[in-house]
């Protein structure tokens, strides 16, 4: 085990200061600062197009923001410090919004990919965790299938298993229930809840399905128009969050339209 493996549990796993990201002159993220600790389950919420996915990409080092001070596992990250970067990445797990399964590899190899390449495990060593993760998501027996042979719901679960098998110190699930019916999203969320409880790591979940997200999170980060509008414990959300966040959460939970919106359809932008 490398020395980076032991970190002070009180120090944040992810620490970011003044993150600003522009794409083609438009400010996608504006002065974002966050401290995320091991053991937290963080819900990332916000309207469509508010910059959630971009924030995630910045945190897992896939996008280099225009300006930021990013520390992962208590060390500054930059492209120049390749060894540390590699070490960081091997401890991060991301479930991509569109799953990003390798379509030339079968299910076993997809789930084992991070173990084999990032951790340098042998195939024999990886077999145990891979099978356990597949069993957990209810896909035991599909090891030799190619992603193209699976249904959409199964591909989603393979993507989740790929994150779980590697047991990363920092796991991110980007919209794990997008477009799912209520029953299936409840199932996926139960899976995530189960995982978050068993793992002593930092788990971040981004989704619009607040009804099922809020019960499993300990902390909520709300991104509105590229800025952090609320960052605090879940149970304080409805009492201390600013108006726009409260309105958004209430709308998502109750299914009751905002009166202002209801009177004038199309009167204001969705963004």
């Amino acid at each position, binding site marked *: 085990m490398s020395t980076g493996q032991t970190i002070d549990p009180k120090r944040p796993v992810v620490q970011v200061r003044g993150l600003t990201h522009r794409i083609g002159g438009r400010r996608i993220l504006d002065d974002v600062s966050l401290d995320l600790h091991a053991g937290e389950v963080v819900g990332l919420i*916000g*309207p*469509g*197009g508010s910059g959630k996915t971009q924030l995630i990409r910045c945190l897992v080092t896939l996008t280099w923001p225009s300006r930021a001070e990013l520390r992962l596992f208590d060390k500054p990250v930059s492209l120049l410090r390749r060894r540390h970067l590699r070490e960081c990445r091997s401890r991060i797990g991301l479930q991509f919004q569109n799953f990003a399964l390798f379509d030339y590899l079968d299910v076993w190899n997809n789930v084992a990919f991070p173990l084999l390449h990032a951790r340098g495990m042998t195939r024999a060593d990886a077999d145990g965790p891979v099978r356990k993760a597949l069993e957990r998501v209810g896909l035991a027996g599909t090891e030799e299938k190619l992603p193209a042979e699976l*249904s*959409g*719901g199964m591909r989603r679960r393979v993507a989740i298993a790929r994150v779980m098998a590697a047991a990363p110190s920092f796991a991110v699930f980007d919209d794990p229930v*997008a*477009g*799912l*019916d*209520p*029953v*299936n*999203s*409840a*199932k996926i969320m*139960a899976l995530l809840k189960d995982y978050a409880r068993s793992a002593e790591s930092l788990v971040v979940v981004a989704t*619009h399905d607040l009804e*099922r997200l809020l019960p499993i999170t300990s902390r909520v980060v709300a991104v509105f128009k590229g800025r952090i509008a609320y960052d605090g414990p879940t149970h304080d959300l409805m009492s201390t969050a600013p108006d726009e966040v409260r309105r*958004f959460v209430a*709308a*998502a939970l109750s*299914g009751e*339209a*905002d009166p202002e*919106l*209801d009177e*004038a*359809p*199309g*009167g204001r*932008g*969705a*963004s």
Partner: protein
Amino acid sequence: MSEPTPVARLIGVDKSFGSHTVLAAVTLELPAGRCTFVAGPSGTGKSVLVRHLVGLLRPDAGEVWYRDLRVDQLDEQALLVLRRKCVYVFQHPTLFDSMSVAENVALVVKYHKGVKARVAESLARAQLERMGLSRLADARPPELPSGEQKLVSLARALALEPETLILDEPTTGLDPYAAFEIDAHVRQLKEQGVTLLVISHDLQSIRRLADEVVFLFDRQVRYQGGMQGFFEANDPVLDQFVHARVHGAI
């Protein structure tokens, strides 16, 4: 209240893709002038069912009727006529990326009203204005968030002034605000007397808007009836669905 006349009917429709059977002997009536929701778990063939009504898919067996037309036996030319009255709006906003929003809407007007490009453009802008979307008229579709793209697709379909409108998962994947805006338009259409068929598993939308609900499960219609009945039905599958319970048949 008199029994509403059906505008469309499916009789004993079977449909398979390869060895995968999606629909087995589905029979269904769509009442005129009402808002019917087609619900069901992901991957049960809701879209497949509805695409039969406009001839985008043809059944392996069974009959599909739209008023007095036998849809499954029409040729492409006749289908084009049908599709002007009964418009299908896709789940993903299928806008043409190379054209501006106004041009997207104008295209449909130009083709079906046989008017000059300039007239079509102003008709299109009027349509956008009516829906409160004027601010988007000159934008390019890829620049817009998906909620607004879906609104524009809806505007484009409405430019045909259809008597029946079919919406495929209009609010799926949208944040609550965008979903409300779509639902508000649907309500307006409902008040105008347009026959609506909405595919959705969004329970909140169903509560807000549905007159009737059709629930598809395991290749068949499990429930058809009023909205209240759907939420209170004494069926374990429906109960699991409306309460989003993890354990059960789904």
